[in-house]
């Protein structure tokens, strides 16, 4: 605070408080609606005093949408994506920053371009690839005449096929295949002093040793930030799991919410829907609250 401005301060508090209310209100309304029974939740206006059916509703939502296994699926996928990003981006950034080889700049740009096109816009062909991940390689072999050659020599017809629909790898891998984390690491690696590398080399450490024993421990902060962001991002994915999982056993918590929308003509069971929403909202909210520092840091670092 630089000077005394009592009137302005009053308005500052007022506006911030209104913003605060708008920000928190939906959470509160969802929680209150989740505690009412069928009649109370449809009252106009709905009572803002919590009802007594909170746990009953949570239980009903839990069993209706079968949220237990779905939440587990979401956790597996979100962890998978976060871990995959943290590891693979570190490896790639190390390669780009610490080595000089032909085609390095080409590779840099190949990876960079993936930042531009999110999964949502190339969803149809990506779906086709996941239905058979080896299709690109089959097509390449067909085009280059390699499969013809193999068929001539060994008599075996080459038809590569590996479907990843309804599998964790099918869910996770396409989400890992972008460059978000690579650039976070690259920026950080560039700030690591060269003297450290020289000293390590002087002591006889090779590239792998330097990477594992020096670079990775130094990037712990980056890993926490990237991991938090990617966990949330993967947890909140909707379109991709919706397409990939036709089988209920692999469905995600977020996509299951659709089951809870009250049908037209059916009983308006908003209390159950809100209880389900609360359950699905809670894990990412906890992550944001507990990991706030890493969340903010990761967000700012990955986007720039």
């Amino acid at each position, binding site marked *: 605070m630089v000077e005394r401005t009592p009137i302005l301060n009053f308005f500052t*508090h007022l506006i*911030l408080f209104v913003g605060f209310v708008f920000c928190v209100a939906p959470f509160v309304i969802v929680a209150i609606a989740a505690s009412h029974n069928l009649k109370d939740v*449809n009252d106009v206006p709905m009572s803002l005093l919590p009802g007594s059916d909170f746990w009953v509703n949570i239980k009903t939502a839990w069993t209706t949408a079968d949220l237990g296994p779905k939440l587990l699926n979401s956790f597996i996928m979100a962890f998978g994506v976060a871990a995959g990003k943290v590891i693979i981006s570190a490896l790639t950034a190390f390669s780009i920053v610490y080595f000089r080889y032909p085609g390095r700049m080409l*590779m840099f740009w190949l990876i960079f371009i993936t930042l531009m096109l999110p999964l949502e816009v190339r969803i149809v062909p990506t779906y086709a690839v996941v239905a058979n991940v080896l299709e690109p390689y089959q097509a390449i072999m067909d085009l280059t005449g390699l499969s013809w050659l193999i068929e001539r020599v060994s008599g075996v017809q080459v038809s590569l096929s590996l479907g990843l629909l309804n599998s964790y790898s099918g869910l996770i891998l396409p989400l890992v295949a972008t460059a978000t984390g690579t650039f976070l690491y690259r920026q950080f*690696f560039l700030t690591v002093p060269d003297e450290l590398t020289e000293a390590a080399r002087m002591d006889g450490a*090779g590239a792998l040793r330097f*990477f594992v024993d020096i670079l990775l421990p130094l990037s712990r902060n980056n890993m926490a930030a990237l991991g938090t962001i990617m966990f*949330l991002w993967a947890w909140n994915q909707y379109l991709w799991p919706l397409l990939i999982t036709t089988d209920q056993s692999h469905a995600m918590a977020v996509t299951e919410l659709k089951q809870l929308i009250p049908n037209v003509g059916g009983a308006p069971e908003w209390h159950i829907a809100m209880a389900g929403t609360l359950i699905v909202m809670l894990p990412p909210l906890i992550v944001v609250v507990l990991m706030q520092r890493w969340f903010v840091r990761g967000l700012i670092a990955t986007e720039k």
Partner: protein
Amino acid sequence: MEKRVTFSKWTIGILFAVPQLILIFTFFYWPAGQAVYWSLTLQQPWGGGNIWVGLDNFRSILSNASYWDSITASMIFAGISTGLAMTIALVLAALTDRQLAGSWLYRVVLIWPYGIAAPALALAFRFILAPEAGFMAVVNQVWPGFWDPGLDGTDAMASIIIAFSWKYVGYNFIFFLAAFQAIPRSLIEAAAMDGSGVIRRFWDIQFPLITPTIFFLLVINITESFQDSFGIVDIMTAGGPANATNLMVYKIYSDGFKGLDYSGAAAQSIILMLLIIALTIVQFRFIERRVHYR
């Protein structure tokens, strides 16, 4: 920027990059190439081979009135929700940056919405804005028929805009606050010493210094409004009523996977890709400009 000290065995170096290269080839470049190929051919979903049709798919899409409606809806959605989310976030961040007592609370709480999955918040807002239960029901009791997103296209559009803006206020707030905090205190204090008030300082010092962040967020918000809107649209309106909220990504999804028109969906994907690439290029030009301010 380049490293001075590097490792000489570059074969190992390439090995480090192989996992990512395989991933982006399989799940990025191949599908992207495939999309181009499909958009130029007529592909039968049951596998009857493709016929080369050149730009016919694009022609038929661009001459289709419902596609233009979808583009218009996307633009309205992008424009209004970006404007709302950014203006509100800017005001809140500027006020939080004044660091009055209790500002830590806002710094913590205002970013919560961004952590919530779009479909989850969409369901929450579907209830809050439901015409028969929720809170708009009260308004409907006073003015019957005032609000019904299930029948009125404008109301439906307003609903998805509210839901999306609510989430992105949190996102923009983080970036604006970081930008404000990066401005040296000495600049603000010097200006105060020269007798300028809080509002004058905002327009003459803080606002010009955060313009790079504004441009950056503008592009990100618009791109996100194309992508992240899918969950909101799917849960709240399913593109309706009468296609009033059939945004571009939602249309790709419904044409491709429900209508099984792969070629049409691929052509739409290509148009959307070009749009996003154009936006990204614009963003880079503005990032270049940042140099002038520092």
